[in-house]
């Protein structure tokens, strides 16, 4: 029987594979659109006949008819006649299936979803790594560095926490004066390490007075050895739980920023800007915004389920009845 925690890991693993292999898995290019007048807003599982021309263009049609040395594309709005010698040599006429439908530019939703998974998960992963590499040393230093260092570092944390994250992000984005993946990762990373540093500080303060730490110190261990070998490993469980929850928050934050146009810029796909794309035809073409929303919800639920499993696995003595 598949348990919820296994399902969460499976789902996350599937998304990671999907994102990592997006260039291989995506059936079509996520940004180019061809012949949108025919292929736009097609529902999931639609099939269209594709005609590839030798100048690189691809035309779509519902019905195709041969007529001597021409092919005739017959659609409701118009009829187009293409001479056969303009077609590519092999497999010029194919049937294309759009598993998750197309958006209003005729772009393939499945391909955009896969490339969007790449963006979302890359940001989630890298931002969480930045948060850990910034937050963990700061928390450790605050716990071990004496009252002055502690006071200074914790005031810095307070200052960062006083800004609502989205205001801090738009300010930093304005300062850096640019957009794109790298800026987004740096800015999100710079605003999401505080929770981790607080948890690390609290845990290490609790640990540093325990008997085994005093004993190790008595044997001559220096503070760095102590922190790396004893304190941080013991403090890791709650930090990892925090990191998993933080990753969920980051995925949502990226989507929200891209949705309002401050994150990943179109035409590059991200789940957030896909949802924005689907806004105009929300009820008639539900699949454009619906699938990225579903992907977002499933990712967030999987990450929080993983945090919950970690909590149970790593701190069994704190199990609730």
């Amino acid at each position, binding site marked *: 029987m598949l348990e919820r925690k296994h399902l969460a890991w499976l789902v996350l693993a599937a998304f990671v594979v999907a994102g990592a292999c997006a260039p291989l898995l995506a059936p079509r290019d996520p940004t180019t659109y061809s012949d949108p007048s025919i292929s736009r807003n097609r529902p999931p599982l639609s099939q269209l006949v594709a005609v590839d021309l030798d100048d690189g263009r691809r035309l779509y049609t519902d019905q195709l008819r041969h007529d001597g040395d021409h092919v005739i594309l017959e659609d409701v709005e118009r009829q187009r006649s293409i001479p056969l010698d303009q077609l590519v040599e092999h497999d010029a006429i194919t049937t294309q299936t759009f598993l998750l439908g197309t958006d209003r530019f005729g772009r393939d939703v499945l391909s955009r979803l896969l490339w969007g998974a790449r963006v979302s998960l890359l940001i989630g992963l890298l931002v969480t790594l930045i948060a850990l590499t910034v937050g963990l040393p700061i928390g450790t230093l605050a716990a071990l560095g004496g009252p002055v260092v502690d006071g200074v570092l914790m*005031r810095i944390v*307070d*200052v960062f*926490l*006083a*800004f*609502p*994250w*989205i*205001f*801090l992000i*738009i*300010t930093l*984005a*304005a*300062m850096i*004066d640019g957009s794109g993946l790298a800026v987004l990762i740096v800015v999100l990373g710079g605003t999401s390490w505080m929770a981790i540093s607080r948890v690390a500080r609290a845990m290490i303060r609790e640990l540093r007075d325990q008997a085994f730490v005093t004993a190790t110190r008595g044997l001559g261990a220096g503070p760095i050895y102590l922190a790396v070998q004893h304190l941080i490993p013991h403090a890791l469980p709650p930090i990892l739980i925090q990191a998993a929850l933080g990753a*969920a928050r980051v995925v*949502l934050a990226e*989507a*929200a920023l891209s*949705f*309002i*146009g*401050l994150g990943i810029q179109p035409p590059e796909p991200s789940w957030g800007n896909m*949802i924005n794309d689907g*806004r105009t035809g*929300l*009820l008639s073409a539900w699949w454009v*915004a619906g699938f990225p*929303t579903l992907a*977002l*919800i499933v990712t*967030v*639920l999987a990450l*929080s389920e993983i945090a919950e499993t970690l909590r149970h696995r790593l701190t069994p003595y704190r199990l*609730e*009845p």
Partner: protein
Amino acid sequence: MARFILRRVVAAVVLLVLVATATFGLVQAAPGQPIELLALDPRVGPEFRAELIRQYGLDQPVTVQWARWMTATLRGELGLSFSQKRPVSELLMEGLGGSAWLMAGALFVLYIVALPLGIVAGLRPGSRVDRAILVFSQFFWALPGFVLAVVLLEILGVRLGWFPLGLMQDLDAERMSSMDRLLNRLHHLFLPSLVLGLSSVGLVIGFVRSGLIGVLASDHVRAARARGLSESRVLFRHALPNTLAPVIQHFGVLMPALLSGALIIEVVFSWPGLGRIGYAAIVERDIPVVLGTTLLSAAVVIMGSLLADLLHAWIDPRARDA
């Protein structure tokens, strides 16, 4: 109590100064200083530019500039908006009013939904009702607020026409009677505050639920039961006050997330609040306004959490020692 208030207020003021200093640091680092922009203008000679630099004290040491900037900020002088040619403080005051309406509506929705559900879940942990409430709160935690916003807007606003599509009031609201104007405002307020309130519902439900479970397992509740008090008296006189007092303090923790969520909601509903102003400013690269909204939003967070702490300490004396 007096000592607690003093200590807490001093801490808040120190934090405010630090936050303002951080913002000052950002001003210094900001690209596109007005003076540099002037240098691009061929009609502005180098002598005039030097005169301006001297006039605005830009040749002074950073510490002097910092002191001048702080005093100006305290007076509410935050500079001029690049794009609107109006004082930033004027813009911010308008936005603060809109944000206050939205925040009040969202908090109303949040607590009227979350408190009863959290209490019901905490009374019977593990029961079917508890699990249903957990699913409900997890759903609203994972569902992005902006998705709920566009779905409700599309169905209830565009398709059915039950709610306005944005803004704080109808365009002719100025000509309405004050009662109609209030009703109009509430009509506009409903959807945005519903969405913003629901987006934090899961956090509050979880907080109330685990708080109540802890309180119900504590000794004084067991003692109250041992004295033969009815279950409803145990709940309403002993358990709930101890559960709900920390909720006030928890509000201070929620504030930053609520304000962040409000920015997105304000953008979707064209709600003229602080967030919408900040968003419009970033789109137009209007740095003084961006910095002003950021500083003000942090000040609101600090004041909100100060207020929450003081209220909590007033209600629960044990909180004064913390």
